[in-house]
């Protein structure tokens, strides 16, 4: 009886209480009042908001629109709050079938949610890509059981799809273009990124571990069956951000990442670096975090398909300087680039890398490789891949097995 009363009161309230001009209040009220286990339905149409929407402390909620590009939440001209939609401290939250546009900061940020699903969601900054665009499109941080399925991210001045400091992640069937980074997995554990298309970004897919964060160490990440192509967009990230140093023309970049398996991807026409494996030292940023591990180890790159046009790498930025004055590849740019900076702790008595810490490169189509020996001012630069002709055990994810 009480429940019926709740329902009817809510319905009366919502049906009579709000004017069209006050869509902000209406939807925000729905998000506050939504009972655990309920669906918040959003109508078809374009709705404009002047401040962020938020949801807190909920369980088993679906926020559902009528479809991508059908239900459009626009934050153009936003005057308050940085995000478009923010969800904090929840369990089993699904956001689906809608488009969010043009927030001042991130479009959808979810924090401390256990079980967050984004499905059929487009996040975009309309117009030309610009450093004035917000940082992240989809931004789950410190979440667990993250599912991003059939989403689209466009125009982010940092990363279109960004998963940070999270655990158990699957990103699939999604597209990212015209972002600085298409898809980025940062300080996260057990992620798989597969069946995605990341193109015309500055960098296609990034797996990074950074210092000074709460979740210190990521790893155990699989990147497979993706189409990563034409990521040659000039970097438009505001300086200071780590992605501002990603060179244009990057397919996949692993920064201080550990236990990563990259396989069966098509990595095509990324003019500077098809796949890069670098340590944190390459960022030339200070590191005072004693618990931070700056080296990439246990990386396996196999069975990918590499292609590139016969063209020069970028001349922009610090990496551009490195290409022009140190590496001097001309147009013959190797697909796989390794900075060659090795943790001495991972070497055995003979100076060989321990079997389980190796960087393995094997069986890729059109495979070409370079160790740039950055540690010794590029003096020992070598295209010899024989030291890396090895196989690592396949990465096992906790939940997801291919």
């Amino acid at each position, binding site marked *: 009886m009480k429940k019926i009363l709740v329902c009817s009161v809510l319905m009366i309230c919502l049906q009579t209480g709000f004017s069209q001009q006050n869509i902000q209040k209406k939807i925000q009220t729905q998000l506050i009042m939504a009972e655990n286990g309920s669906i918040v339905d959003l109508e078809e149409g374009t709705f404009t908001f002047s401040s962020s929407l938020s949801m807190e402390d909920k369980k088993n909620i679906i926020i559902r629109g009528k479809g991508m590009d059908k239900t459009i939440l626009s934050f153009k001209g936003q005057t308050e709050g940085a995000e478009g939609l923010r969800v904090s401290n929840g369990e089993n939250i699904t956001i689906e079938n809608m488009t969010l546009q043009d927030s001042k900061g991130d479009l959808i940020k979810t924090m401390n949610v256990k079980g967050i699903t984004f499905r059929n969601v487009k996040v975009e900054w309309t117009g030309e890509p610009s450093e004035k665009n917000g940082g992240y499109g989809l931004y789950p941080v410190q979440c667990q059981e993250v599912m991003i399925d059939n989403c689209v991210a466009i125009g982010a001045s940092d990363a279109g799809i960004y998963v*940070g400091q999270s655990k158990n992640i699957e990103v699939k069937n999604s597209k990212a273009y015209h972002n600085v980074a298409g898809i980025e997995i940062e300080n996260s554990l057990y992620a798989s990124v597969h069946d995605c298309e990341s193109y015309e970004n500055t960098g296609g897919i990034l797996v990074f571990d950074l210092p000074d964060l709460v979740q210190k160490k990521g790893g155990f990440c699989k990147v497979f069956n993706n189409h990563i192509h034409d990521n040659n967009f000039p970097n438009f990230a505001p300086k*200071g951000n780590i992605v501002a140093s990603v060179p244009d023309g990057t397919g996949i970049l692993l920064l201080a990442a550990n236990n990563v398996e990259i396989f069966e991807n098509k990595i095509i026409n990324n003019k500077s670096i098809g796949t890069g494996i670098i340590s944190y030292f390459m960022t030339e940023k200070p590191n005072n975090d004693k618990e931070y591990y700056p080296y990439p180890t246990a990386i396996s790159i196999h069975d990918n398909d590499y292609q590139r046009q016969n063209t020069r790498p970028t001349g922009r930025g610090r990496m551009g300087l490195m290409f022009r004055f140190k590496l001097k590849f001309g147009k013959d740019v190797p697909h796989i680039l390794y900075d060659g900076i090795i943790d001495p702790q991972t070497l055995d008595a003979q100076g060989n890398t321990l079997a389980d810490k190796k960087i393995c490169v094997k069986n890729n189509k059109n495979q070409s490789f370079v160790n740039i020996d950055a540690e010794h001012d590029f003096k020992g630069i070598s295209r010899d891949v024989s030291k890396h002709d090895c196989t690592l055990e396949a990465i096992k994810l906790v939940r997801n097995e291919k």
Partner: protein
Amino acid sequence: MKSKYKNLTPDPSPTERGVIHPTAPPLSRRGGLGVRFLLFLSLLIFSFNSLHLSENQATAPKMNLSEYGFFKGNIAEQKPVDGVVPYALNTPLFSDYAEKLRFVKIPEGKTVTYNSTEVLDFPVGTTIIKTFYYPNDFRDVSKGRRLMETRLLVHEESGWKALEYVWNDEQTDAVLEVAGETKEVSYVYLDGKKRTQQYSMPNLNQCKGCHNRSEVMTPIGPSARQLNGDFAYEQGTENQLVHLQKIGLLKDMPNLKDCPKLAVWNKPETGTLEERSRAWLDINCAHCHNPKGPAMTSGLNLSIHESNPTALGFDKSPVAAGRGSGNRDYDIVRGNPDKSILIYRMESTDPGIMMPEVGRKATHKEGVALVREWIKSLK
């Protein structure tokens, strides 16, 4: 393709009761009181349902501030009844130049337990009351004031709960508001210039944007260090901690000389430049920027207790600042406020850049000047 994560998909059949239908035909805003009443009713039932309250555990939120009986006489005068104690903080949060009146009501027979580092331990049943207002003329308070909102933090068995009451234009009462409100406000500031600005009042979710420790709603202001200062009570001026102890509300308090004391940000006689800057950053930033706060993901901790230079921002690269970096490399560059992201974000009023993210539309020029001077002084 079917999800391989079995427990990722939420309950596929949310019960009918919970489905909210927003297919509302538009109605003009003249819905007025009736609408408010319905909203209130639904809120009542909502709290009843989702917070699992039993009758003797907590009372439902009241529709009007006046119903609580915190004030005597004309409620707009904000004269507390006996048992409602006014207080002030040494260095308060900047809220778009609004002034604040603070009160706390401790339930009969209960006491507050002293805590040397965190907010005092208030017993269940406590209500913390904060009213925001603008003097019509900051130079002459006798010209009256406009009360904007009164926020309550109510300590129930299940934890702290926030409630927001927005003052009506007639200034006769404040009414419960769930989804927030924005009003235009005009006043003459200390420089004699008239200012007009939009003033935002939070929706209930936004309360937790700041009042959040490990996702638990928590008060921010009334810590020993913030209360360790004089207050002009009706009976005379007295140190607030001493006063609370004297009237029997505060227990386990050490000698006053052993209690921490936060500098007053704009009174140089109360602390060094560094102490006053750290006090300002503590109250304005550290409610989020602490290891248990919503900004923990950034690794930047501006709490008064932090001593690790990188965590405090020195030569620290931003993590997810986006365009908030302002093309600067580090949060704080010693000696160079114009290269410090911290200053860039304090100065900005762009919602995608500025800090704090909520609760501010204007730049706190005097606060920025203080922190600038401090950063400049560092070597």
